[in-house]
């Protein structure tokens, strides 16, 4: 029997937070958008983290499969990354003139990412997806952008839908929404809006919420690539979430094509705040022409961290490692579920897996199981894909499967 967590201090902190912060905790890490079902099963505030673990303010330890929603790729507080960051911090971080670490980092990305001829840095994924769209519009002198339904490209108004608070029709009037993997729909859109489509923006595969994640069908990317090339349309890959967890050379490389622009953030610097837009040479001058900058975008510490992170990911063959660990976990969870007669679906790639108990289409059974896991110290979510990090040990995986087993037994007893 595993210990059931108590979250008294988290709840007390939430009461404090709510008084001075909208919603208490806003966004994807909050209880509403984070789908804490039921809310009592989840911790609200962390105290510290190391490797594959984080500890909440009540002292509960979690094996963390959300990895801060992606940034933790090598393990929290990775010694090599932290040492590089500390060394740079001792010299300076946010300074009037940028540090040459910026050049080092850009050179490393150009050498690492197959489709990259240059790199531009910002802070969040949204910064670079927005810049990618601006670049495409500036280059093509066109307005329309193709999206695939289920996408997430950030929080700027152009990425949201017309029914989102604060978004007006003009923000989204040039958005074309198509079904993922529907190449006929892509062709039809290009016929219908001939000469008007500035860009196709897409994640490398559909890792959306609330449903099984979906890989591209055969030749999908090759066909999209050809259509974009034939129509002088910019192909943007939003690799913010999947980047470096499929392929160190970029997820477009993993799927056998080359993007014109590719956006990175989460796994780029193991939690240090930096994002990057990389692209083809023919778009470099266009990027130069944009008015786009930020107070902290050229800070040197995240560049130093990013260099150390990428070098270490290469050194340890990180993507292969993540796939191996992800597969071990996946197989263990599916086998454990089947012991109790449950059909656990694990979709997406092993390093970025999505879980769903398929026996109940309402997801309520799945939410119960996830809650029982979290209460026992395995941090899963019921709506979002998960993330593997390189520090995840065999012992961590074994403990996860043991907790999952107990959680399955709890829900089985509850419903039998």
């Amino acid at each position: 029997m595993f210990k059931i967590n108590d979250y008294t201090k988290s709840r007390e902190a939430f009461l404090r937070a709510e008084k001075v912060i909208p919603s208490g905790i806003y966004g994807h890490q909050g209880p509403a958008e984070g789908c804490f079902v039921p809310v009592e099963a989840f911790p609200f505030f962390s105290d510290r983290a190391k490797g594959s673990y984080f500890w909440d303010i009540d002292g509960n330890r979690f094996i963390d499969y959300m990895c801060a929603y992606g940034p933790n790729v090598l393990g929290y507080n990775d010694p090599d990354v932290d040492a590089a960051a500390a060394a740079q911090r001792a010299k300076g971080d946010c300074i009037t003139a940028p540090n040459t670490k910026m050049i080092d980092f850009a050179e490393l990305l150009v050498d690492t990412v197959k489709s990259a001829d240059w790199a531009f840095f910002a802070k969040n994924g949204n910064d670079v997806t927005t810049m990618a769209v601006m670049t495409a519009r500036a280059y093509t002198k066109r307005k329309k952008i193709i999206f695939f339904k289920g996408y997430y490209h950030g929080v700027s108004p152009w990425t949201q839908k017309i029914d989102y608070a604060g978004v007006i029709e003009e923000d989204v009037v040039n958005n074309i929404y198509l079904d993922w993997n529907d190449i006929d729909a892509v062709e039809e859109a290009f016929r219908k809006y001939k000469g008007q489509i500035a860009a196709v923006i897409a994640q490398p595969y559909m890792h959306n919420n609330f449903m099984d994640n979906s890989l591209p069908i055969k030749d999908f990317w090759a066909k999209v690539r050809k259509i974009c090339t034939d129509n002088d349309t910019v192909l943007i890959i939003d690799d913010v979430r999947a980047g470096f967890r499929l392929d160190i050379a970029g997820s477009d490389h993993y799927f056998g094509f080359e993007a014109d622009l590719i956006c990175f953030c989460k796994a780029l610097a193991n939690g240090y705040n930096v994002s990057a837009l990389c692209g083809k040479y023919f778009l470099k001058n266009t990027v130069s022409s944009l008015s786009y900058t930020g107070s902290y975008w050229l800070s040197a510490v995240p560049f130093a961290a990013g260099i150390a992170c990428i070098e270490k990911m290469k050194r340890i063959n990180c993507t292969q490692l993540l796939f191996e660990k992800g597969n071990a976990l996946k197989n263990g969870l599916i086998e454990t579920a089947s012991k109790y007669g449950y059909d656990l679906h694990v979709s997406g790639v092993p390093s970025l897996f999505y879980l769903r108990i398929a026996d109940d289409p309402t997801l309520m059974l799945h939410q119960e199981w996830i809650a029982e896991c979290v209460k026992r110290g395995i941090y899963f979510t019921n709506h979002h894909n998960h993330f593997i990090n390189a520090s995840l040990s065999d012992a961590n995986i074994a403990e996860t499967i043991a907790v999952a087993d107990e959680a399955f037994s709890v829900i089985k007893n509850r419903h039998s």
Partner: protein
Amino acid sequence: MTDAKTLSYINLYAILGAMTQLCELDPKAKEILGNKRITMEITVKKGPTARLAFENGSCKILRGAGKCNIRLPFSSPEKFNGMIDGTVTPIPSKGLTKIGFLLKTFVPLTDLLTKYLRPSDEDLKDEEFFRVSTLLTFYVVSEALSQIANNDSVGMSSASYIVDGKIKMSIGDIVGACIVAKDHVLNTVHEMPEDFTSYMIFKDIKLANDLFAGRVNSVASVGHGNIRIGGMISQVDNMNRILDRVSMYLA
């Protein structure tokens, strides 16, 4: 940001539709109605048509045209909305002899309904008034939700992302509605569903009233466990975007 046609559907099915509950919840409504047996049809050109059937102190709403004693035709959604606002006086095309019902029964009933739906702070201090006001508002909100989903262009966009199923919306075990989604069209059934694919449950009457009045934050309420959501949360998520528009229309 809002349109007259959608508002006319809300005014007919949600606001006047709440008469059905008013007659059950407040004895004064029964008293006003007495034993009158009248069916009143409201027809809005390029808008909704429905009948309010009053009988033995109760009220039913029947969708579409049909047998009636009084018919109130409106040449546009704007004219009908004007009647609800009190700026347009309706002229019956049928039932001129029943004009007394309109003046002596229907108007007092709508006045009573307005008292509950636009309550004063003083009235809300009365516990029973607070309860009835909240339950009537719940009815209006849950019905307006479907009307917006099916008529308002932005609401239809939200509904286009709602997969088929049943969403339970309730105030604890006190009152509930089932929002049935089928092919991205929503229909509110004003009963607590036994089976549902997702749910949004308000803890109690007070929380529901605070939410409707904008006194508490819904996202923080999820954090406190005062609003419970679950099941196919994408349904609830998209429904909440329509609920944002309910407050715009009812403002």
